[in-house]
């Protein structure tokens, strides 16, 4: 096939990009080369629209061992231990084929982590679906949950936390973001930078099939009515083989025979080989006849672009081939020497004794397009005036029950009880809390992780929304007693070619950067997913933030369930009564406009750090951050989890009761303390200039505000627990 402009455009390249390729090569590429360019230069692999802005994120810190640019980020947790972690999207495949899409998303992110030498110890996920009324939502939810469970459960890695939301902006484009944490010894981290000449390049894992060809290109395009036709571009997962691959790789990594290792994820053999060569400033020569293939008569083009799962590329020390092969034989996995490193600084492919591709690596990587897309700055929406008569007739308990049964607040136990969250025997805080927590095996340390997003805030004002998500992640870690270390981000947006969507991206990233820089909570890994839209309509901007923190002594871990009757409950942080963009405004008042709550980074940091001090002093019995649904929702969840009630006090200062209890002001936590510690706690709060209100005292089984406003915890529990179960069984 002779390549021309039309074929290039069919590959998702722009006309100018194709011209640039011809200029750089000083000739027309052949079809295999064109395939390679299209894979490397698409949005998913090249970050061409986002690179310029991602550069501005803070990525360094005292505990950061590896920031963005590797398979995953790495942070130091002391005693020669390090945590490797990353979040990644698998949105488009999951919409087309929810089970396989979600499963291979989980498989892919785990591979990114164990490629670096770390054993995965926890999975998390952030999944977003269309309206619960939409005809596809139920099946998509079921398929995605089955897929995540199917892969993670089989791998024997606990799924310890997650987030699920429903919003009509995802009707035609759901989001599936998967995150994995792995544990590694600091001096045994593996990287993808090739080094040395004439070193064998080894292919291990599954055979290469025709599945997923052009997966990365599909992930870089918008959806249209014909999306179902793209099913063949979805990869098929085999968690059993990945489990074998994990054990085999870790066994090989015990020795010192690996120079570089890279998993074959998006754009398969193409991006893995080019990445290793590029980082090592070397060339790689591959004989494609040596690549283990599942199907007969696969062409070089297909072999290079296949996204078959569970495969790795390794650059090995000379003379270690036999030893390495024995390990992969033991685990019944393919092992093939397919090429070698060269000094040519080119990627050279041979097939049937003919050279089928010959491209300088730097053309593919450094010369890949980078765009400074046009973007539109968002204005801060005007505050809504809430008419007092709108809310004065409302009954607090009725509102509360409605909110607790809202799809975005209700218990997600139906989802996480399908994930194995206890395998590996170290899960000390399971899903349903502020963060999931796993022990660092055999030590007193534990690692907390949380994944958060607030698409509604980001949609209302991207800059504020971006800051808020980082702060919420910070709070979720602190609420369990963990010191926040670093974050990974998965940036899900609409089309970068649309000025408004691009503006949302730019400003969310700016907000994320400001908050993470102020909170010393750097970004160490992540991924960008653009073109999340159906036809011209983009999703609400949805950056997902995965936060990781350390608990030095896990006996000090905090959970959110109320512990003891007569204990005192405080709310830390000031409640101003910000109702715009709150769940209350949307669900009860049906009001969708207005600005999101403001972020005060000083208060966030100060309140959080002070709470950590209190936790460290053993003064806190339970804690929970206040987010969606405000104080009333947060306190109800603490009651439900602990099977206790609370006698609530009326707000002291001049504020409407409903606004007080349902406002979504930021930087707040609810804490439980015992009476004997009250003075000590208040002294510390005063000394650190942290605002607090006394919220009430814990009772046996009733949420009590007044004789007219009270409800049993059992009733609240059934509102909260049953909604999703009922929805899924209908």
């Amino acid at each position: 096939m002779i390549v021309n402009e039309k074929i290039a455009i069919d590959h998702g390249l722009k006309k100018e990009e194709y011209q640039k390729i011809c200029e750089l090569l000083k000739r027309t590429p052949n079809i295999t080369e064109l395939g390679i360019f299209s894979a490397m230069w698409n949005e998913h692999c090249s970050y061409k629209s986002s690179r310029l802005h991602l550069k501005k994120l803070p990525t360094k810190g005292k505990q950061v061992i590896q920031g963005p640019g590797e398979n995953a980020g790495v942070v130091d947790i002391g005693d020669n231990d390090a945590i490797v972690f990353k979040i990644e999207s698998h949105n488009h495949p999951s919409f087309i084929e929810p089970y396989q899409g979600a499963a291979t998303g989980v498989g892919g992110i785990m591979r990114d982590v164990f490629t670096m030498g770390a054993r995965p110890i926890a999975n998390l996920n952030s999944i977003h679906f269309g309206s619960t009324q939409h005809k596809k939502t139920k099946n998509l939810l079921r398929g995605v949950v089955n897929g995540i469970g199917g892969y993670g459960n089989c791998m024997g890695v606990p799924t310890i936390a997650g987030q699920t939301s429903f919003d009509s902006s995802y009707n035609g484009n759901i989001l599936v973001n998967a995150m994995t944490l792995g544990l590694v010894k600091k001096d045994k981290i593996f990287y993808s930078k090739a080094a040395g000449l004439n070193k064998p390049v080894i292919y291990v894992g599954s055979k290469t099939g025709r599945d997923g060809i052009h997966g990365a290109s599909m992930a870089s395009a918008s959806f249209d009515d014909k999306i179902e036709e793209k099913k063949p571009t979805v990869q098929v997962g085999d968690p059993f083989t990945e489990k074998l691959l994990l054990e085999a790789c870790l066994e090989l990594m015990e020795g010192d025979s690996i120079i570089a290792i890279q998993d074959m994820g998006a754009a398969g053999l193409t991006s893995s080989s080019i990445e290793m060569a590029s980082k090592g400033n070397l060339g790689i020569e591959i004989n494609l006849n040596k690549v283990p293939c599942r199907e007969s008569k696969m062409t070089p083009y297909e072999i290079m672009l296949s996204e078959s799962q569970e495969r790795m590329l390794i650059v090995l020390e000379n003379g270690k081939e036999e030893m390495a092969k024995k390990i992969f034989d033991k685990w019944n996995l393919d092992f093939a020497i397919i090429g070698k490193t060269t000094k040519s600084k080119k990627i050279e492919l041979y097939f049937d004794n003919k050279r089928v591709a010959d491209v300088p690596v730097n053309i593919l990587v450094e010369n890949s397009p980078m765009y400074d897309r046009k973007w539109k700055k968002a204005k801060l929406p005007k505050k809504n005036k809430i008419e007092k008569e709108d809310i004065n007739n409302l009954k607090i308990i009725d509102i509360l029950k409605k909110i607790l049964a809202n799809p975005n607040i209700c218990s997600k136990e139906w989802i996480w009880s399908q994930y194995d969250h206890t395998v590996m025997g170290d899960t000390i805080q399971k899903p349903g809390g502020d963060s999931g927590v796993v022990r660092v095996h055999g030590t007193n340390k534990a690692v907390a992780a949380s994944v958060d997003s607030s698409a509604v805030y980001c949609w209302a004002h991207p800059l504020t929304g971006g800051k808020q998500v980082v702060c919420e992640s910070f709070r979720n870690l602190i609420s369990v007693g963990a010191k926040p270390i670093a974050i990974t981000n998965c940036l899900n947006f609409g089309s970068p070619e649309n000025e408004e969507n691009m503006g949302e991206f730019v400003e969310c990233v700016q907000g994320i950067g400001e908050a993470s820089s102020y909170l010393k909570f750097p970004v160490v890994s992540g991924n960008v997913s653009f073109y999340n839209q159906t036809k011209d309509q983009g999703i609400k901007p949805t950056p997902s933030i995965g936060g990781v923190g350390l608990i030095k002594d896990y006996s000090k871990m905090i959970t959110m369930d109320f512990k003891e009757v007569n204990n005192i409950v405080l709310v830390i942080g000031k409640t101003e009564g910000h109702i715009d963009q709150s769940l209350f405004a949307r669900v009860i008042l049906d009001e969708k406009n207005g600005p999101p709550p403001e972020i005060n980074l000083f208060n966030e940091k100060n309140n959080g750090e002070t709470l950590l001090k209190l936790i460290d002093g053993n003064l806190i019995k339970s804690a929970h951050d206040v987010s969606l649904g405000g104080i009333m929702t947060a306190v109800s969840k603490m009651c439900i989890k602990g099977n206790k009630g609370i006698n609530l006090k009326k707000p002291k200062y001049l504020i409407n009761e409903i606004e007080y209890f349902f406002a979504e002001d930021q930087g707040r936590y609810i804490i439980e303390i015992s009476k004997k510690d009250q003075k000590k706690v208040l002294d510390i709060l005063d000394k650190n200039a942290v605002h607090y209100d006394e919220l009430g005292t814990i009772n046996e089984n009733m949420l009590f505000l007044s004789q007219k406003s009270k409800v049993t915890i059992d009733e609240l529990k059934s509102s909260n627990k049953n909604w999703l179960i009922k929805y899924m069984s209908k």
Partner: protein
Amino acid sequence: MKSAVITFPGSNCDRDMDVALKKFGFNNKMVWHQDIELPKSDLVVLPGGFSYGDYLRCGSMASKSKIMQSVINFANSGGMVMGICNGFQILVETGLVPGVLLRNKYLEFICKNVFVKISNKDNFYFKNINNNILELHIAHNEGNYFCTKDQLKEIEDNAQIAINYCDAEGKIEEIFNPNGSIKNIAGIFNKEKNVLGMMPHPERMIDPSLSGDDGSIFFKNLINNLK
């Protein structure tokens, strides 16, 4: 006391079992599925996981792997063999314990704490245990125990039911049955009671900071019985 845990390709609770056995005093060895001989052991454990991916019937491939002939011989000569979760599925496939394990009634993987009532203490696994009810943890997709009427009669006549799903008070009722098992069966013995297969994972409940600590009761009692 010596124990051995078999690792099949796809086993994923083998390490957890190793940790638990060692914690309660066993001298444990890991055994690879392609080995032919078992090390000298007082207890052999088939751990949980997804042996061979469970792509065929759960446990069926593993039941044919090399080491299993030795395990079967060991069991037939009176040796203690315990299968947990996928290990139970493997035991069923070897025929060492009767019945089959079907897909859960509600067709969903279930991961949660359950209560089980010990139905027979006249064996080395539960002899001398003070508790009648244990809180354990299940995590499976195919734990729905089924057998024919004749088999059930035989199982009951021989007192082969080891544990049943129940509530905290020990009531064995359908609403406390997580997966649809006949008679709420969570674990059964062979006729001689030296082979035990059960769905719950005691090895995940060996520390108060985990989902619970009742697994410790089970293991402490087990090693004392074997001494």
